[in-house]
């Protein structure tokens, strides 16, 4: 098992390498550079050159890449071009916990809601409830998540005032779990919706698949009640492929956080990324992209390990 984990981690290295090259290359294709933003009428031309020089923007591209990669390997993502003097690492460290929290909670929501729904749907196949669940999942797939988010804000926050409009916590108040939850619940739920729909469909078909298996028939023939059959004999088997799906879902999940963070003013790396992208803050963009990809890789690693834990047939 540990050999497997090591192998998977090693496999991630060339992966991340390719990722860094792609992201760096993309940045360099960009027209316009960050100094364009500082078009202050009162800037002196020589100051501009010096400014570029101080950030190494005048160097050869390969040199810039090498320098960046070398630093990054040591945990140094460079300094923000916009936020002078602030290490990118600090920016990311300040934001990452928020994103991770959001993703964790919404993953939990997604799984907690969609798996039971899918399982229920599968066991009541072709019933009215099944059709209803199926239709709602399709709706969930087809509705842009930002739209759901905006609507919820309009109705629940602005009109009814039940939830705050954005942010992670009330400013200036002492830390309280309830306050954090209060802020978290809408964005986490909306981020969960898109994948929830797919996940429900997937757990349904996964459960249906399991219910067709011979060992389910065995369990039934042994006189176990339907509930026991489904939960004790079926569920764990049905969960195994769902774990893999989690790994596959992860990129879109992290990608989706950009939108959700924008909608809910959630100060995570998605929002950081959006700002950086608009401002061409290369070091930040590249760091976020690499970290997001690393998150995906780690998520997949976790999924694989979980898979191995859940499925005794897999031996490494």
């Amino acid at each position: 098992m540990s050999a497997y984990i090591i192998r998977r981690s090693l496999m991630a290295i060339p992966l991340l390498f390719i990722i860094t090259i792609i992201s760096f290359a993309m940045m360099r294709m960009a027209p316009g550079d960050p100094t364009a933003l500082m078009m202050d009428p009162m800037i002196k031309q020589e100051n501009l050159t010096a400014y570029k020089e101080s950030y190494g923007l005048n160097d050869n591209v390969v040199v810039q890449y090498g320098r960046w990669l070398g630093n990054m390997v040591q945990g140094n993502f460079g300094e923000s071009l916009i936020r002078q003097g602030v290490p990118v690492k600090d920016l990311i460290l300040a934001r990452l916990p928020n994103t991770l929290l959001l993703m964790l909670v919404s993953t939990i929501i997604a799984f907690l809601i969609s798996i039971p729904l899918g399982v229920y749907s599968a066991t009541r196949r072709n019933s009215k409830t099944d059709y209803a669940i199926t239709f709602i999942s399709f709706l969930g797939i087809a509705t842009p998540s930002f739209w759901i988010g905006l609507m919820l804000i309009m109705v629940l926050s602005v009109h009814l005032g039940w939830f705050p409009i954005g942010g992670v916590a009330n400013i200036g108040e002492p830390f309280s779990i309830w306050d954090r939850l209060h802020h978290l619940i809408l964005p986490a739920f909306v981020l969960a919706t898109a994948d929830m729909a797919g996940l429900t469909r997937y757990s349904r078909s996964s459960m249906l698949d399991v219910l067709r298996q011979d060992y389910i028939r065995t369990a039934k023939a042994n006189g176990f009640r339907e509930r026991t059959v489904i939960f004790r004999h079926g569920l764990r088997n049905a969960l195994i492929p769902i774990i893999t799906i989690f790994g596959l879902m992860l990129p879109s999940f992290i990608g989706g956080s950009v939108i959700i963070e924008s909608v809910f003013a959630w100060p995570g790396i998605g929002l950081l990324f959006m700002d950086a992208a608009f401002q061409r803050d290369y070091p930040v963009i590249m760091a976020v992209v690499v970290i997001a990809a690393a998150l995906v890789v780690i998520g997949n690693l976790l999924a694989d390990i979980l898979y191995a834990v859940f499925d005794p047939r897999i031996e490494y």
Partner: protein
Amino acid sequence: MTLTEEPRLTGRPALPEEPAVAPHEPIWKLMLRKYMKNKLAVIGAVLLFLIIGAAIFAPWLAPKDPSQQVLLDKLAPPGKDYPLGADNLGRDTLSRLLFGARISLLVGFASVAGSIFIGTVVGAVAGYYGGKLDAVLMRFVDAVISFPSLFLLITLVTIFEPSIMTLIGIFAIFGWTGTARLVRGEFLSLRKSEFVLAARTLGIRNGRIIFSHILPNALGPIIVSATLGVGGVILGEAALSYLGLGIQPPTPSWGNMLQSAQNPQIMLGAWWYPLFPGLMILTTVLAFNFVGDGLRDAFDPKIED
């Protein structure tokens, strides 16, 4: 040689001739039959048919010029003059929706066509030849897949101006990986299937095996994923539009129509303005999903009728 007690007649037909069990029915009819059984899929197909038709015939169907502004009719509610209301520049929403359908569907279809093409070629090569080539290609696919695609889309769209062509290109370039994996999987398993082995023992060349034996059998999943992909791209364009990075106005797309209605002032005061593009996106994506589901059934050899 077999020893037999009874002398055996030679030259007679081995057994009485048997008629075919089922009367001859082309595959597509069988698939159609399976498809028609999925009611949602039929509804989806009808919807899609209507939407695509509306897009094609937009110039004839649209009551007004979609870019004709009557600033005084800004945000006019649905009524006689404007069946679905007017937007914030006094343009006819219905006409813009019809022309927007062209753009949204064009972006959807074109980028999916591109990504399916790339994905199929890469997946087919990797799956059929296997070995080192497969390993290298799949590592690359892994890398591209590990990028949260929205991050890439945003980065690229901020780099290149978000014209229709660049959007199509970007969606195509980052949408192919799923197809590649899918096709590779299909090829890997089909490559070992007995009918492919049989073709090999008969001396059929690789190219022909790929195109005439494996590909047609892998077509089902490819078409299904393409169908779902179009819906995905339409949603993706809407998401980019939300961030101001989708198809750029004044060219109407459903995404940017929705985006221009984001203003809370409009959302509260002129509900019809965001409603219709939103509905179009929803309906179209829904229809694509239904159709995809039906096609999945139709192509699935396991589901017998």
